[in-house]
């Protein structure tokens, strides 16, 4: 109870907006919960030690002659400066290593699901592979089944990035030429946010993603949906948009599975309409934002690798966004 009270006092300002929370204070993953406990143990313990040091300093300055004499001896230094920290630090070290070990021991779920995330300037390529070896790409959104430890393979396509979804776990770097594995166990369903934590130049501040933790059946349904090809355009505007998407050359960078667009430089757009954001967390995903992104992405997210397409007419933009938003 005490702990919750301190928490409330400390992070009251941070509770202002909880939409798509991105905070280690609100753990929704097994590792984040263990670290949260560790944090509070250390904060309260450290707080007590801090108050103690300040109090001793005050006594050294203002105390009576006898107590000051007691403080002015080497045994005091040996006790407070060597013996006490040695004991405390040893206990803390063991506790920390136990938590580290608990994280490392978690076996990944046995259903053969593999998730790989590749950090790219400045977005996240997410690749799912199911037990049968079927694989598909999506971007900037990580879906997880609740309650199951999932191993996520982290790589980089260019510079060093760091995958950080603080509600679920600590961060782990994505380093060219290496594969790091992070085990995530979502403990409750819901959407949280994450962000690149290793400075990667340019638009580093704008490299975020969502983590969607779902009950198993919901997750399986999502997998089935995502693995399939794109849905055909459902309106005339969308049909025009689809044709324009191909004729304007969007397919050179983007793939829409089931069409001629097979580019791999940018995010796979097969089910872009079903995602929560555009531009790696930059904009909410709706038709207006899509239009805005196509025309103005260099202002919205400076230096990103997509050129700003100012060549389209208003009508063409309507068609394109209708098409893309329809790719559920």
């Amino acid at each position, binding site marked *: 109870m005490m702990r919750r009270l301190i928490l409330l006092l400390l992070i009251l300002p*941070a509770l202002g907006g*909880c939409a798509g929370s*991105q905070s280690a204070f609100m753990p929704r993953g097994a590792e984040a919960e263990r670290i949260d406990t560790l944090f509070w143990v250390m904060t309260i313990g450290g707080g007590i030690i801090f108050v103690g040091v300040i109090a001793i300093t005050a006594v050294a300055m203002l105390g009576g002659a006898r107590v000051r004499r007691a403080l002015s001896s080497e045994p005091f*230094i040996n006790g407070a*400066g060597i013996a006490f920290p040695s004991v405390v630090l040893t206990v803390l070290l063991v506790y920390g290593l136990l938590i580290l070990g608990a994280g490392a021991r978690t076996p990944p779920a046995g259903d053969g699901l593999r998730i790989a995330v590749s950090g790219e300037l400045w977005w996240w390529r997410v690749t799912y592979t199911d037990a049968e070896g079927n694989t598909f790409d999506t971007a900037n959104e990580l879906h997880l089944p609740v309650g199951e430890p999932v191993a996520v393979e982290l790589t980089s396509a260019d510079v060093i990035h760091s995958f950080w979804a603080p509600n679920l776990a600590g*961060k782990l770097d994505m380093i060219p030429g290496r594969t790091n594995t992070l085990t995530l166990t979502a403990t409750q369903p819901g959407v949280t946010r994450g962000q690149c934590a290793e400075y990667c130049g340019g638009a580093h501040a704008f490299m975020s993603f969502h983590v969607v933790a779902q009950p198993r059946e919901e997750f399986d349904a999502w997998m089935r949906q995502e693995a399939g090809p794109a849905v055909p355009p459902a309106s005339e505007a969308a049909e025009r948009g689809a044709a324009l998407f191909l004729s304007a050359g969007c397919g050179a960078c983007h793939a829409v599975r089931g069409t001629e667009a097979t580019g791999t430089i940018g995010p796979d757009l097969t089910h872009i309409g079903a995602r929560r954001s555009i531009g790696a967390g930059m904009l909410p995903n709706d038709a207006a934002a899509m239009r805005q992104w196509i025309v103005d992405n260099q202002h919205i997210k*400076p230096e990103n690798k997509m050129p700003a397409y100012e060549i389209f007419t208003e009508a063409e933009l309507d068609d394109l966004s209708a098409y893309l938003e329809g790719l559920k």
Partner: protein
Amino acid sequence: MSDAPHGTPRNDEFPNSLPRPEGELEALERAWEMPKGIRILTEINNNFVGPLYIAAAFLFFVLAGILALLMRTQLAFGDNDFIGQDLYNQLFTVHGTTMMFLFAVPVVEALGVMMLPQIMASRDLPYPRLSAFAIWAYIVGGLVFFSTIFYDLAPKGDWFMYPPLTLTEYSPGDNADFWLLGIGFIEISAIAGAIEIIVGVLRTRPPGMTLARMPIFAWGMLIFASMIVFAFPAVILATMLLEIERAFGWPFFTAELGGDALLWQHLFWFFGHPEVYIIFLPAAGLVSMMVPTMAQTPLVGYRLIVVALIATGFFSFGLWVHHMFTTGIPALSLAFFSAASMAVAIPSGIQVFSWIATIAAGRERLRMSVPSHFILGFLFIFTLGGLTGVMVAVVPFDFQAHDSYFVVAHFHYVLVGGMVFPLFATFYYWAPVISSRMLSERLGKWAFWLMFIGFNVTFFPMHITGLAGMPRRVWTYPGNMGWDLLNTISTIGAFTFATGVLVFIVDVALNFRFGLQGPRNPWNAGTLEFMPNGNYSMRSIPRVTSRDPVWDNPSLPEEIEQGRHYLPGTVTGGRETLVTSPIEAEPQYIMQMPQPSWTHVSAAVFTAGFFLLLTIKQVELSLTCGVIAVISFIAWGWQLDKPDKGMVDIGGGIRVPTYASGPQSHSWWAMVVLMLVAAALYASYFFSYLYLWTVSPEVWPPGGSPEPPPLLYPLGSAVLMVGGGIAIRWAGRRLPAEGARSFAAPAVLALAALLLAGALALEIYGHLGTGLSPTASSYGALVYMNAFLVAETVAATVVLCLFAAARQIRGHVDAVRRANFDNAALLYYYTSAQALFGLVLIHGFPRLIG
């Protein structure tokens, strides 16, 4: 703990009796007189270059602080676009780089340069031109580096410049090169200062000031400088590797060709972590100077503190991986480095409790002056920073805190608390040493409270901001994340802190008056720095018999000023200082010191020009500057090594020589420290070689690269080098008698230089013959990098050999006055030894594994 007080000794109990001969003081003043007018720039004395150095470092503190205010303004609330993305990325890179490389290390070195001669009653540190050179190089290089922010040329890879982001592919343009060449160059200046400080502390203490009586600040500076010697070469090698990969495509950091991005991180943090303690230890030393004075009682736990300082320096080299906990390294490494990171908290604890014990030990209560305020502020902030340091040393917690604002909060608590607050305490405490007026107690307290409150308001909320999910180095953030209020508070705090600094600047403007005749010992300190002084430091050098000599002998200031102690004038007629033995501090010889000169100024300016013009690819101009710099160095060196002036009397019946060679000489010591620097650089290379092999053994021969050339090549190189070494040894035994000339030794030196260059050429030729290319793989790059490193030391050795040969031909080297020859020989032996080790590695290792 101290020897008995002097009582009131009779006239003849002092080393030198009164009255002093007429003209003695005038001659001393003449020798140390500061040059007038524009020629003041040629001055090398610590009383001029020390304050200049501190002023320059403080300027960079203010400039980098202004960048911080710009960043805080940008971050005051979410979705702000006051400063754009690209400029912001440059701002935090330059802020961090400037604070670490252009403020923190230089200002501490500056305090050492300025204050060590006062504390140790020496006339000056042993290589005043070297420190003046380092300072000018730093001022020119630092200003040019900083100014890149004004024309969009500033680096933007953050202060630790991780590749691959900083490789040409992701960072085209000259921005990154300004960091690599500019900062690499300033690191060299820091090393020059470190050599000065090490030899200064060990060899220019007053008689009787044994290591066990040395003021803690001198201990702090000694350990600080030793750490620079071993830590900075790692980052110098790293910057060399990265610049070479950027310029010529040698793949040290590119994974596809057998390089590894983590190599940079290992090298950088092998420097970067000790760097934190490099900054903190001298500051802790300052606190250990001020607390006893403010409490008017000797430091409690002196020996424990010395052990703690040494232990910190030692441990700090074993913790670098704690900056890499999130890179996915094995759990065993995590455990080891976590334990080491916690262990280093203990020496800090010892010091904190020693200071508290000293405060408690005072007969009176702690005097609440401005320095005391800053020290108590330091204790508060540093303790908190230390506790969060223990938190981030716990690996799982670091997984969350790393690269978030929690870490930003933590290291500002440690660095600003651990270093900036003691520094401001020192400014107030030591100002009277070089100012005829004290700084204001009233303004000082305003400055303190604004800074203390401002600091905590800025950085305490950041602990929460970080764990609430805000990463470092983001130029903006969405307004709905719950980070706005915390950031607004931090911004308000930052401006409050800056106001405090501004009050300090106003105080300095109002009250600081440069001059050496300030109030005498205004705080009643027990150490020597507040003794009456002139440009020559103290008139006479006392024998020190305790840790607090002034408390033991209150009449010491008068005795020193009257010239009753050692060396009350100039015995050689010029600038000189007394050199003592490193441990017991017994007088050994009088060192004749250089005069003011333009040579080191020109060497500094043109060395800076060489590096900076190279950065913007002005190769011809750059080389011209390089040549002028080398000529300046030679002219500078030519004026040194003055001839022996025989035995002289310094008082108290002590007669000492005015020349020394071999292991007693200061130049031998500097050469040995320089060799340690070179060896540390090469050790970093050796680590890099083995490290990249463990990462990518597939690019090593025989499978991945051509096999090394036949053994005849390395054997040939070895024979050439060993032959040269034997020849030098032979010539060293046959130097001509004092005053005579001989042409045999110069010929041998020239021949040895030629053999060395030949050995290098043979090594490179052999590898070219196998078809190995430096750009094909990390293996090829490492093989040629070895040759590159050898080439550097060979170039220096050749220059020094030819210099010594020329000096001999002119009759400046003989069997007594042999320092020039000895230095050339020492460097020759070192270079050959390093090159032989390299031959074994480059030719042996592939055969061993193949």
